[in-house]
């Protein structure tokens, strides 16, 4: 496995080096620099150092065309949102809502798969999905894209951009009443009131003590768990009030990565995944399922998912709505090859492991029952 990986890495790097080399000489770089400087001269007026040209008629025309395009796009999205074969079902067997994963399949680039029911929901293909979160109503999705956070109604296909990300790749967590989102953007936490679409920074990266990686709202709405992620070697799991007060470290700084915190329904525990790196070539990463009391205490290891190479995989864990199970997207400790990840469910003591599907692109989610 290592040799084929090394061979692949070598090929890929050689290809990229060739592509990046191009034919541009040093004088071309100087020409490019001159062109940029010249262009900035022309654009200086655009920055408010000069007068802006007045073009009201052209603006009106552009606005009309944009409105028409937006209407057509909304219609197209409604048509393209295909439920196959029926709306995402509720599975009585689980009594938990429906466990769903995000995948890219033959059916489409953005597919939500309802695992137990073996049905899927195709999301609009033009959305470059980076992160998904179900609303408490089980119908709306907060979709993180490079452009920002969209709220998408999975029944009608309507969507709107509720928050433009400042740097791209932001993600959101819903308040338990579904009225607000907290968005992780540029390492800080931003509260978005969905009725007014007003955005308020509740804590920036300096207040958090580092850039935030992920955040999860507790089910009683009183706290937000946030991981400040300085890389794989140091992470802190903290809780903060939705108004930005009472920042309390719970775990860390850990000389390990912390990811995917998930609150128990009663708010008494937070489960999360911890990954460590030992620098070895074959299986450098170890992944463990941990649990901690957010009021304090020593984290307990629930499951050792094993070591893997697993570069790039995004492990995740989510707590079932009835509080009896945890679903993981992670290495399967029972599999012969540690890099064969699975979607599986365990009891709260880490036992009774049941593989229920192929690994998803991101953490699984339990779609709430409306």
């Amino acid at each position, binding site marked *: 496995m290592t040799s084929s990986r090394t061979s*692949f*890495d070598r*090929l*890929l*790097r*050689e*290809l*990229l080096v060739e*592509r*990046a*080399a*191009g*034919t*541009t000489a040093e004088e*071309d*770089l100087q020409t*490019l*620099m001159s*062109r*940029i*400087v010249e*262009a*900035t001269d022309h*654009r*200086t007026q*655009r*920055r*408010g*150092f000069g007068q802006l040209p007045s073009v009201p008629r052209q603006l009106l025309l552009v606005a009309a065309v944009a409105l028409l395009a937006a209407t057509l796009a909304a219609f197209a999205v409604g048509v393209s949102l295909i439920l196959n074969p029926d709306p995402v079902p509720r599975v009585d067997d689980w009594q938990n809502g429906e466990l769903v994963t995000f995948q890219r399949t033959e059916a489409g680039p953005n597919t939500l798969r309802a695992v137990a029911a073996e049905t899927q929901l195709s999301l609009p293909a033009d959305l*470059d999905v*980076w*992160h998904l979160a179900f609303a408490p109503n089980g119908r709306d999705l907060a979709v*993180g894209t*490079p452009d920002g956070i969209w709220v998408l109604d999975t029944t009608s296909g309507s969507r709107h951009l509720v928050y433009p990300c*400042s*740097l*791209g*790749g*932001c993600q959101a967590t819903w308040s338990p009443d579904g009225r607000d989102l907290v968005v*992780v953007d*540029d*390492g800080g936490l931003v509260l978005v009131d969905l009725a007014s679409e007003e955005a308020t920074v509740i804590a920036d990266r300096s207040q958090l003590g580092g850039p*935030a*990686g*992920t955040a999860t709202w507790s089910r009683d709405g009183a706290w937000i768990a946030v991981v400040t*992620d*300085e*890389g*794989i*070697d140091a992470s802190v799991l903290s809780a903060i009030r939705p108004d930005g007060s009472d920042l309390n470290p719970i775990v860390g700084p850990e000389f390990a*990565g912390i*990811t*995917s915190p998930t609150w128990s329904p009663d708010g008494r525990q937070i489960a999360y995944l911890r990954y460590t790196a030992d620098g070895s070539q074959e299986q450098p990463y170890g992944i463990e399922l941990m649990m901690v009391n957010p009021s304090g205490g020593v984290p307990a290891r629930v499951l050792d998912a094993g070591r893997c190479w697993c*570069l*790039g*995989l*995004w492990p*995740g864990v989510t707590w079932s709505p009835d509080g009896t199970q945890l679903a993981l997207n992670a290495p399967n400790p029972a599999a012969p090859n540690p890099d064969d990840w699975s979607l599986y469910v365990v009891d709260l003591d880490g036992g009774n492991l049941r593989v229920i599907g192929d690994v998803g*692109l*991101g953490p699984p989610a339990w779609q709430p029952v409306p």
Partner: protein
Amino acid sequence: MKTVAADREWGSDALLADRASAGDQEAFAALIEPRLARTLRTARAILGNDADALDATQDAFVSAWVNLPKLRDAQRFDAWLQRMLVNRCRDILRQRQRSREFSIATSDRIGATPRSDRDFSADGGDFTAEAVARAGILAAFERLSAADRHIVVLHHLHGLPVSEVALQLGIPIGTAKSRLHAARRALERALEAQR
């Protein structure tokens, strides 16, 4: 661990960004000069075409100049510039896609040789196994989005660890890992298909 020198360098860049933000073109030139070659390499690797890469790089820097007053934190200039570059690369790839759709539709109408036939006949079956593999990876790379190509380039060309890629792009490390994995899996599948 950051050194004092690195801190000083970072600080001076932030100062230059602040001055450029206030309209100082000399400060802007000093800010972008050391970034020009690397940005151009990134654009070339993403786009695979010199002319497009030059355009994308120029547009990204000009866009940075125009929008610099909106940058809230000057120390985030590099991540912000990367975003400008990828946005411009994405626009260029979309333009290419549209023109390709048009040319394929046109060639279909005039009964031209299908592209796949042309590709193999042109090289007369002289591909070595590695050349076939490279062609497969390259074709798969061309199917990636601009954002995914960018992550692959940062990690595999510039050699940045995933945590640094996440910092450069201003995204959570989990997101960076997920995107890199998805892109890499697509490329690996292409390689396997050639074997």
